[in-house]
């Protein structure tokens, strides 16, 4: 009887949690569709721009290194002459075994503003590479791009202008998949990204909540990170960790929807599975570290704290839901599904239609309306397959993070495979 009681209790809690997320997604969607939008500080024109160091971690990036460097050299940010220079480009060759090193040295010989770093000792991975580069970076503002990104000419200014606000610790731009034509997976990822940035991130910015720094197409104040020991090399989601480190110490993260940049989305389910599992593992590691801090920090208002908690536990929810599904199956076969009746049944239907189905759908559909791309919206029902796919791999990532925390195991960085064979892909 006690077990049945707890199974029923867990089931009800799952329903309530799912409904909470449904409300959150609905509020965000409503905000984007019907409420006044915040004006972008990207509308500011200022000639007093700070010196920026653009860091690009690279591990075996010979196929894409040209693309990102050429794009940055075209940027509308002074980089040409010594006296007027406001930008340096720091590509970080992190244990590359291909021709990345030669390519970077060729560019450095040709352009004074490119200062490559070659790493063949110490910790591997993006956080360690960024830590090393930050020590020698001249700029107070650090902007990070992954090697497969193609920044537009005005992107650096769009990002950097946010730091005129003295409270801003980090800024995040919008990422748009460039290889949507590859297959159904990249098309579905395109939908997810649209909903995530155009609606979710922007609504959080509008509502003064917590937009997330995403690790690339974004920037931060160097001193804030160095003063607190740099990036943690044992965390896979250094971007999430930075978001919560800043938020818990009173700094703002802002989202810049106009700072758009192309990225390459994974083209195979296997690579997407690895990526999402790694994200889940890293994000949940951050959850274990920051859950208590988030509850106790004095810098967040109640609504900000609630939203930050929901964002922090977002990669826990598939696990909660998977257990909830198993729980409900158990209750069904035990003949114990008579938990509630009457109008309360609507609560259960609502829960069913939240996390896995309609809730993110609102956001994706709205994003497509805002982006004026109507036809791709027809693919929305196919996202339900992604949901079950993620349910499985995020759960794996969660349990890996639990093992990491319990055994103090050090996670090793895994690079996402590139598909582009040279060029910009645009």
């Amino acid at each position, binding site marked *: 009887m006690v077990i049945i009681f707890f199974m029923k209790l867990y089931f009800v809690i799952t329903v309530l949690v799912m409904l909470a997320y449904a409300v959150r997604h609905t509020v965000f969607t409503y905000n984007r569709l019907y409420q006044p939008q915040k004006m972008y500080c990207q509308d500011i024109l200022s000639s007093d721009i700070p010196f920026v160091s653009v860091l690009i971690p690279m591990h075996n990036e010979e196929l894409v290194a040209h693309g990102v460097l050429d794009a940055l050299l075209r940027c509308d940010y002074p980089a040409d002459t010594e006296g007027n220079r406001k930008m340096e480009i720091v590509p970080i060759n992190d244990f590359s075994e291909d021709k990345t090193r030669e390519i970077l040295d060729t560019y450095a010989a040709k352009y004074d503003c490119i200062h490559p770093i070659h790493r063949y000792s110490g910790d591997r991975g993006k956080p360690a590479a960024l830590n090393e580069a930050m020590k020698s970076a001249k700029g107070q503002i650090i902007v990070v791009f992954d090697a497969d990104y193609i920044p*537009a000419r005005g992107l650096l200014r769009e990002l950097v202008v946010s730091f*005129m606000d*003295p409270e801003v610790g980090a800024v995040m731009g919008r990422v748009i998949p460039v290889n949507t034509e590859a297959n159904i997976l990249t*098309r579905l990822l395109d939908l997810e990204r649209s909903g995530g940035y155009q609606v979710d991130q922007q609504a959080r910015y509008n509502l003064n909540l917590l937009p997330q720094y995403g690790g690339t197409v974004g920037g931060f104040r160097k001193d804030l990170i160095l003063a607190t020991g740099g990036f943690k090399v044992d965390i896979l989601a250094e971007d999430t960790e930075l978001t919560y480190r800043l938020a818990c110490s009173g700094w703002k993260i802002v989202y810049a929807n106009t700072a758009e940049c192309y990225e390459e989305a994974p083209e195979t389910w296997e690579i997407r599975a690895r990526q999402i599992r790694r994200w889940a593992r890293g994000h949940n590691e951050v959850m274990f570290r920051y859950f208590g801090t988030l509850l106790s920090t004095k810098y967040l208002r109640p609504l900000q704290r609630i939203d930050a908690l929901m964002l922090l536990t977002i990669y826990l929810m598939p696990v909660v839901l998977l257990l909830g599904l198993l729980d409900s199956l158990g209750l069904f076969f035990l003949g114990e599904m008579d938990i509630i009746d009457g109008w309360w049944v609507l609560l259960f239907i609502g829960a069913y239609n939240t996390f896995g189905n309609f809730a993110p759908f609102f956001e994706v559909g709205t994003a497509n309306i805002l982006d004026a791309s109507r036809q*791709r919206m027809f*693919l929305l*029902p196919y996202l339900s397959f992604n949901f079950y796919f993620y349910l499985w791999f995020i759960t794996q990532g969660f349990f890996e993070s639990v093992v990491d925390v319990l055994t103090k195991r050090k996670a090793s960085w895994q690079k996402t495979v590139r598909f582009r064979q040279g060029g910009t892909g*645009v």
Partner: protein
Amino acid sequence: MSIYIGLCMLLFVLMMVLPFVPGWLEMRRKKDVRHLYINGDFVRNPRYFSTSFKQKLLGTGSLSILKEEQEVMLSKKEILIQADKLTAGQKKFENLVFFNQQPELLPGSVFHKEIYARQNIQFPEETLLRAAACEENCRLGKSSRVIRWIDAERQMEIAENCQLDLSATAGEHLLIASGCRFRRLYAPMIDIQGGASRLQQMMEIAGTQDGLQRDVNHIEAGQVLGGNVVAKGDFTLHEGAVLVGSLKVYGDLLLEEGSQIQGNVFGEKRIRLLGGNWIRGSIFSQGRIEAGPGCIFGHADAVESVVARNGIVFSSHTTVYGFVLTEGEGSIL
């Protein structure tokens, strides 16, 4: 009975499958398969309208200054009239107009399409025009209206009570008089109703800008505070107070007479400057900005911005070095 079961099963299968059909068709037809468009060459340019218009008009090199009428390609084919020899009394212009010399226009003229002037141009009072690009100086007579944009390569002077629906810009100097309404202004120097007194010019005060202070809600009269400040509620700079640093305010911000901020200002609500104030950097508000007389925004030889979502009100003898933008209504008292 078996028919009902069969129909129910068919209905079930249809309901399961139907939502996927439009997506399946889209996957086959690939009507919307291209990635979202990002303009890789996009750079913010406050004089974009004029630059783009002139590029389209002059870029191909096919424009002849001698022909009285010719076809040009903008977003579509347009007729361009060379209007140096105006028909006496002509006040209405239905086509694109090209002035090679300074024209004599009549009050109340109406231009339905864009205007391109190679030399100085003066629009008399109560002119209605869609858009105008001038290679030299331009003057807009009182009570005129610009439906889209107006730009001068050198100086632009806008007389009283003009309505500037979208944008007014100049390459060197913009003078704008009282009663005007605007949304976007740009020039290296914008003088509003005579501009601020140059004698009152900015005196930078030494002070540290390190650190971030969160527990301040005002600066006493005549006091100098160094460092960046974030105020969760309202914030006041009393008379003659100086902040050497940038300021973020979640409540209302009030700058009493003569107070200064030697940095940038970000406000979530209303920002009021009572007069004689100086903001050295840019000022940005999610609410309104209301500036009293004699204010200076920005500093010489630099571009700074005054941006507010819900509206901007300027008073007399104000100078802005750079850019002004609002999504609401901008007005000059």
